């Protein structure tokens, strides 16, 4: 009988431990989820800066369309700017960022951890060739000077009178000083005419979040998830001839 009892005790112990090991980690606290890409450009001093503020939801929780009761603060150089809730989860204000400004963000809301984030505005982009409103041929190239803190360059052009639109990405190598974009590199869509081109440089947060790895959950933020990045834009008009 003693042996039987001992065996049963052992069995009960084993079967209990089967259950004990079933779940090891169930805790999760909701966090901020933001998406903000600050903008600076060569021609505007004050620009509207937008940050979308959202949050994560536990799997068994209903979601809300946005977060409209957060306190969102930007700091750069010696300034502090509160972003005001606008609509649809967007918070905005006018700010005058310059290239290489370090901009920090803080978001506060009851029930969520405070989010901190930081980005360094890239730029400026200099267009070395062509000069504005000049004439270029199909065999020509657009030449940009590499700027500081830029991780990805994006060019977007459209014909002023027409439907031709084209775009190109460029990822600079470590020792590059110039970006040379042959116009033929835009493909067969170019026709002669007057063109407007925008060139945008994005910081590494933007690049990491959207381009390098779409499985990462945060870039440039701590205490929450999402993206806090920045960009700089310049533009040029020129005429394309045969």
């Amino acid at each position: 009988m003693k042996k039987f009892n001992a065996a049963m005790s052992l069995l009960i112990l084993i079967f209990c431990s089967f259950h004990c090991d079933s779940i090891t980690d169930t805790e999760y606290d909701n966090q901020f989820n933001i998406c903000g890409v600050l903008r600076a450009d060569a021609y505007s001093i004050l620009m509207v800066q937008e940050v979308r503020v959202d949050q994560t939801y536990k799997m068994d929780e209903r979601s809300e369309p946005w977060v409209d009761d957060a306190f969102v603060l930007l700091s750069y150089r010696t300034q502090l700017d509160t972003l005001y809730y606008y609509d649809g989860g967007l918070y905005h204000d006018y700010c005058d960022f310059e290239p290489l400004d370090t901009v920090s963000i803080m978001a506060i809301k009851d029930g969520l951890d405070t989010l901190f984030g930081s980005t360094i505005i890239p730029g400026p982009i200099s267009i070395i060739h062509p000069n504005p409103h000049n004439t270029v041929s199909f065999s020509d190239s657009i030449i940009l000077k590499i700027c500081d803190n830029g991780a990805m360059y994006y060019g977007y052009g459209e014909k002023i009178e027409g439907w031709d639109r084209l775009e190109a990405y460029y990822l600079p190598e470590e020792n590059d000083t110039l970006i040379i974009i042959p116009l033929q590199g835009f493909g067969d869509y170019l026709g002669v005419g007057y063109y407007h081109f925008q060139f945008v440089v994005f910081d590494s947060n933007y690049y990491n979040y959207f381009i390098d790895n779409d499985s990462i959950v945060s870039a440039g933020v701590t205490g929450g998830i999402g993206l806090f990045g920045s960009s700089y834009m310049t533009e040029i008009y020129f005429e394309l001839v045969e």
Partner: protein
Amino acid sequence: MHFLYLMLFSASSISGFVTDAANGEKLGFANIYFEDLDIGSAANELGYYIIHSVPIGSYRIACSYIGYETKIVPVQVKGNSKLFINFELEPTLMEVEGVSVSAERMRFEKEVEVSVVTFTPREIKAVPSLFESDLIKTLQLMPGVVAMHDLSNKMYVRGGSPDENLVLLDGITVYNPSTHLFGLFSTFNPDAVSDVELHAGGFPAEFGDRLSSTLNITTKEGNSKKYSGAASFGLITSKLLIEGPIPKGSFLLCGRRTYFDALVWGYSLITGDSISLPYYFWDGIAKVNFNPFPNDRFTLTALGGSDVLEFEESFGNRPEEKIKLEWGNRGTSLRWRRVLHPKLYGEFIGAWSNFLTHLWYEDYLDSTNNIHFYEDITDYTIKGDFDYYPNDDHSIAYGLDYKYLQFNYNLDATEMRLIDREENAHLTSAYFQDQWSIYPPILSVQYGIRSIYFNLGKKLCLDPRIGIKARVATNTALNLAWGKYSQFLITLNNQESYFSIFDFWRPVVADNDIPTAYHIIAGVEHWFGEKSRLTIEPYYKKYFNLLIPDQTNMFFSQPVENLQTATGYATGVDFFFRKDFEDLFGWISYSLAFTRREIGQTWYSPRYDRRHNLNIVIGYKIPRFIPVLKHSTLNLRWYFATGLPYAEDLARYRRWYYYPYSEYDEMYWYEWYNIKGPRDGHRLPLNHRLDLHLENNFRIFKLNGSWYIDVINVYDNKNILFYTYEPGEDPPEKKGYTLLPIPVPSFGFEIRF
């Protein structure tokens, strides 16, 4: 030399082989003893025995084996004589389930070994199975062996991944043993198997080149007494086995093929529906034994098999393209066993093994698009093993082993070779081991060393091994084993995925350190009489320099070039209780296991870390007074285990996409993404399942036969394999998926002639 001469030739001895008189199969671990002297011996696994130091005189020598009639032979021993006596034992009418128990008891008496389980084909067939009895699925019921899911055909042995298992079939290294039906069936046809021996750890120096376990499969010799055979028909396969004598030898031919494709084709002909199932597999084993002289035996074994998936895309009635994927194992071994001297037994093996994968794409409209991809591993082995029995106290084994390994990876376009990669490796090993009965029968030790030279990086590994056995009582032994193990080949596909068609093997390159493991095992083995035994084995295994593919795909593993270096450990306790009554037999195995790996500074439990694993297998001979079911056996298997670790979805979020310079309003958009917890943060629910196998033996038209019915997952438990969250609802619905959504029946029959 003089000493050796004296040892070899100075005393009388009796040696020989023990075989089954009905079919000539060897009987390993038979008991040989003198009726009128207190000396005796046991045959080794090849049925060879030797009794040393027999005094001059006339005696009666007996050979016994459970399930066979004891045979007694009178002998006259003269001075310095070397008598060679073979025993052929007649089977009794008694059922033979006990045979393995007898052999295991003799192993307990004779061998210093830990973590060994053995099986006979009868036991493999007795275990309930889905469609087809399977050797590896039977081994998954053993302590220390974990299956990833209900249909898995891979063995995770004591925290080791399947690529850490050495699988040998008649000396042929089988690199992908679980390839049939996308990894659901093993490549071994149980009808052709004679013995299965699994070392779950602490294996001796004669085995090497793997970190975790060895699975040594021996096929049947072939009936040397008469022509016989068996044909069996199951739900998805048919099998045929033919064996018989040849002059001075025997042969065996065995094959099987699935016929789902043919059935579906026949159905489509009848109904006119254009349906097809473009998949089948086949495998076969051929073996020839030839004994030209009493002391020489040549065995030629050939193994082959393929899985074929082939389909055509058509536009109307015009075929446009064809894709064909074929993969399979092939191998040949030639073995020469020779009794060089009654005390010295040698075996020489030349073996070739190949695993080949082909993919053809044929474009009927534009042949310049045709491609052919193939990938293979080829293993050429030359090996010599020697067993030397100098006296009753020592049993020495030593040998040499040379392997030439070729790895090819090619992609051909119509007129051009796009990829041409070939790697070669040479592996040269030597081993020595001695089983020494220090204080017989109480204290024995087996010590040995294996040295391996690997040409890539010019690496030399010395792997010492030691085992100690203390018989603290007649029926009880304490075992201790320690050893170092090295592995020189790795796989490029992650072994944590639920499914894989086959493994992509590569040599460890010169820049990497050799993956190494240390085993320490302490166990107790206790016998309750002659037919029941209990083993309890705590173990600890430490890993270094593991090379793990940088990919964690849950479902299908794919080869990747990036490997991560990992360390880790596996520890636990295995319990095994096996009992064999006349009408009731079976076993209970339970494993408590902890497996951890470290990559960088991060520790985790791999997906196959099953904490508790309980298997109960019971076979019951139905009483003969029950009509219809007389001559029937009912086998049940119940399985109960902890769920596997997985990364649970903890939360979800809108992943916003944004381009700040768009002139359109839709510059923001999003997709829902989930945030996963740690890869081992949660465990799936408990797994349990009851399977049933009913087998009835009958006789018809002077032929013996049997039919069987299997039901898997009798009480319809849903063993969850993974979860998904169904989009479209808020919050999303969590849904679990299982591989066996309903109880699955299968049936078949066999005719023996």
